[in-house]
């Protein structure tokens, strides 16, 4: 039964090429946009190396301070605050502090080399799993002893040293010389937490004033022993913030913030003005809502075209009804046709989406980004396609099932 439905479906699609083209165009285009969007979000927020322990890692990104004079600031916390109150969280397995990556310019043989620099500590390399191409990470000891050592990514190694190995050689970053101890694979610019071109020990920061600062450009990554410990850790962090003694209580004495995934951070920034709550659910709801509204137009279009298509086949439906086919059988047949159509459109959409993602990767808009269609995005897209197919097929099928066989056989209908 299903096989003959499929055969009819393909025949019908081939016969009415124009309608098929319109439908496929709409479906494929919609899916391209949705899968590119999903691929993008997955690349930015999904778990992938070096953040392989994302399920039990949370970070402190932004904090908000408020004072009695009404001055409110939302910034990255300073080293002093994190060192005192976050490194000491009892429930954490490891805590790493690191700076927000900043662009520094180095001149080599008259050429300008731009690189993003991140200062960090030894624990960073134990929380993140970087893939080392040569050498290894610097250690907590390097940080303490202020050893001038650096980890580069592959592209920066090429810029400074060409194709050869770099470990043991000296590199000049922003006017200071460092010994290269390791080279890692490029990390995408869009991976907010680990991204940099050059990683240096915090101890080598020239200006010591960062050590006591409460506002600054530091972040912290916290690794919990197990994912189940995360709620407790969040609670510990909250009470730690409540205990903070402000160095300047006249200016600020109230601290709010939380430990988040990057997605949670975004939701906090968007929906919680005081940064008190993680509103991931709300953000997800908005994203799904936008995707749904976006799908509305092609769906309406598809419904339109489908209605036109059945009305054209009124006499065929009339014959089938006259020979005793029930409304449900007809609805089933039509849904199968529509699902076949959307699946074909879906495959087309995926092929095109892969092209678009490839073009984005090749454009260099986001350094080192490798957006890809992975299995999860593919599955989500497939489900989306089916949903889309059923949604756009339901109304036309219902219209069809209501056709009066006598009128339909005559070919006249309203």
């Amino acid at each position, binding site marked *: 039964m299903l096989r003959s439905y499929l055969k009819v479906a393909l025949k019908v699609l081939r016969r009415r090429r124009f309608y098929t083209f319109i439908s496929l165009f709409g479906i494929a285009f919609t899916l391209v946009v949705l899968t590119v969007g999903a691929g993008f979000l997955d690349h930015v927020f999904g778990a992938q190396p070096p953040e392989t322990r994302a399920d039990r890692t949370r970070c402190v990104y932004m904090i908000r301070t408020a004072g009695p004079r009404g001055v409110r600031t939302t910034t990255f916390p300073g080293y002093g605050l994190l060192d005192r109150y976050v490194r000491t969280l009892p429930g954490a397995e490891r805590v790493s502090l690191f700076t927000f990556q900043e662009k520094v*310019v180095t001149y080599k043989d008259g050429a300008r080399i731009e690189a993003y620099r991140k200062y960090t500590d030894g624990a960073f390399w134990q929380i993140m799993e970087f893939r080392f191409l040569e050498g290894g990470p610097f250690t907590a000891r390097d940080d303490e002893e202020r050893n001038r050592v650096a980890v580069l990514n592959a592209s920066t190694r090429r810029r400074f040293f060409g194709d050869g190995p770099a470990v043991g050689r000296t590199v000049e970053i922003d006017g200071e010389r460092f010994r290269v101890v390791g080279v890692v694979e490029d990390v995408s610019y869009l991976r907010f937490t680990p991204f940099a071109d050059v990683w240096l020990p915090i101890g080598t920061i020239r*200006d010591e*004033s960062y050590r006591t600062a409460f*506002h600054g450009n530091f972040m912290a990554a916290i690794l919990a022993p197990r994912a189940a410990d995360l709620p407790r850790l969040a609670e510990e962090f909250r009470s730690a913030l409540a205990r903070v003694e402000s160095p300047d209580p006249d200016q600020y004495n109230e601290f709010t913030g939380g430990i988040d995934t990057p997605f949670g951070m975004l939701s906090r920034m968007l929906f919680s003005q005081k940064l008190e709550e993680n509103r991931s659910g709300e953000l997800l709801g908005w994203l799904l809502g936008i995707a749904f509204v976006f799908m509305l137009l092609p769906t309406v279009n598809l419904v*339109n*075209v489908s*209605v*036109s298509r059945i*009305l*054209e086949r009124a006499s065929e439906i009339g014959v089938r009804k006259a020979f005793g086919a029930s409304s449900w059988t007809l609805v089933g047949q039509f849904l199968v046709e529509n699902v076949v159509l959307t699946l074909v459109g879906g495959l087309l959409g995926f092929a095109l989406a892969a092209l678009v993602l490839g073009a984005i990767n090749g454009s260099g808009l986001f350094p080192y980004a490798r957006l890809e269609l992975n299995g999860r995005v593919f599955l989500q897209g497939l489900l989306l396609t089916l949903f889309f197919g059923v949604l756009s097929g339901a109304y036309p099928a219902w219209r069809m099932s209501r056709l009066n066989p006598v009128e339909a056989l005559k070919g006249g209908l309203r």
Partner: protein
Amino acid sequence: MIGQLVKLCWNRKGSQALVVVEVFISFLVLFAVLTVAVYNLDNYRRPLGFDYHDVLNVSVGSLSDAAEIGAGRTRAAAVTDSRRLLGEVRGLDAVESAAAMEVPAFDLTGRTDIVEYEGRRLESYNNGVSDDFAKVMRIQVTRGRFFEPADDGLPYDPVLINERLAGDLFGASDPLGRNVAPRPDPGRGGGEATREIRVVGVFTDFREDGELSGPEPYFLRRNPVAGASAEPYYNLVLRVRPGTPPSFEEALMERMRATVPGRTFQVDPLAKTRRSMMKTKLLPMAAAATIAGFMLIMVALGMVGVLWQSVARRRREIGLRRALGATGRGVSLQVLGELLAVATAGLLLGAAVAVQLPLLGVVGWIGNGVYATAIALSALAIYGLTVLSALYPSWLATQVQPAEALHYE
């Protein structure tokens, strides 16, 4: 004629409703994209107010870190550093003039403060600059004068305001020599001491966030770099001689490092900063426009499909009209007219929703003119699309042979 068309459409309202919905949604999509486009184009054609070519921006590393000052390095040391830097770079051969500014250009940050004149309060973007700023940036002063070294001895704080702020605050009257309300100055005497702020000049504009930013009130404060009231600077701008090679940046960097050790520097040509800022702003717009464009193609194709179907279904009706003497032109106009009537219905619904934006003032900084233009352009585009998608089906309608069509029964 129109009445008849509307009636014809109403008779088939069930099947037309979906087209109405389609037009409605695509109108809203178009409206959103065009509002942003019109707003930005409108901004783009306004003068920028300064010249970014051959200007290098130097951001001075940890000077900009507010934490540092709290952490013990004295303000005076930072001021000394910025003064020494400025003196040093001025002496370089390739540098025509150099100045300092607080908020760098083209970086999407800004500082606002309240200005007040005779009870009128306005929030205005502003920047603190040194005396040579007008020379480096080629600011056009239209009335009054720019800051000068002799201003050190003034009993008040001089400011220059842009034409827009002059208009908003003073209307047609002359702003020169007027006091805008003094504000508490935390820099001197812990927030209590106040000094008068007096307008000494008017300049065309300084749109620090580039050509795409909206027209904003703006004023420039004087920060003298030297003297008791000086505050440290985070940014230097240098106008270099045309044709200075990029390798100069390296020499400049080394010179500055030698002058004030312990600071970090970043040198960027302003033209380059502007390019990357434009990219950041234009990229999302280009993506949205591409998506909207494809959506419109989809809608147009959908309308062609629906019309085609309706022409095919109404062969007898059309045949009858031809038999009774209607011309091919008349028939094709009918097809087009019906689609236009349906599109108008969707359009009116869309416009009713779109008009809410300016009426409710949801996005305050976009003017009503921009909305009106966007609505008009969207309507025009939708009608254009409608006509385009009706071309082929309406031609098909003229090909109906009355004898054949009537024979069909």
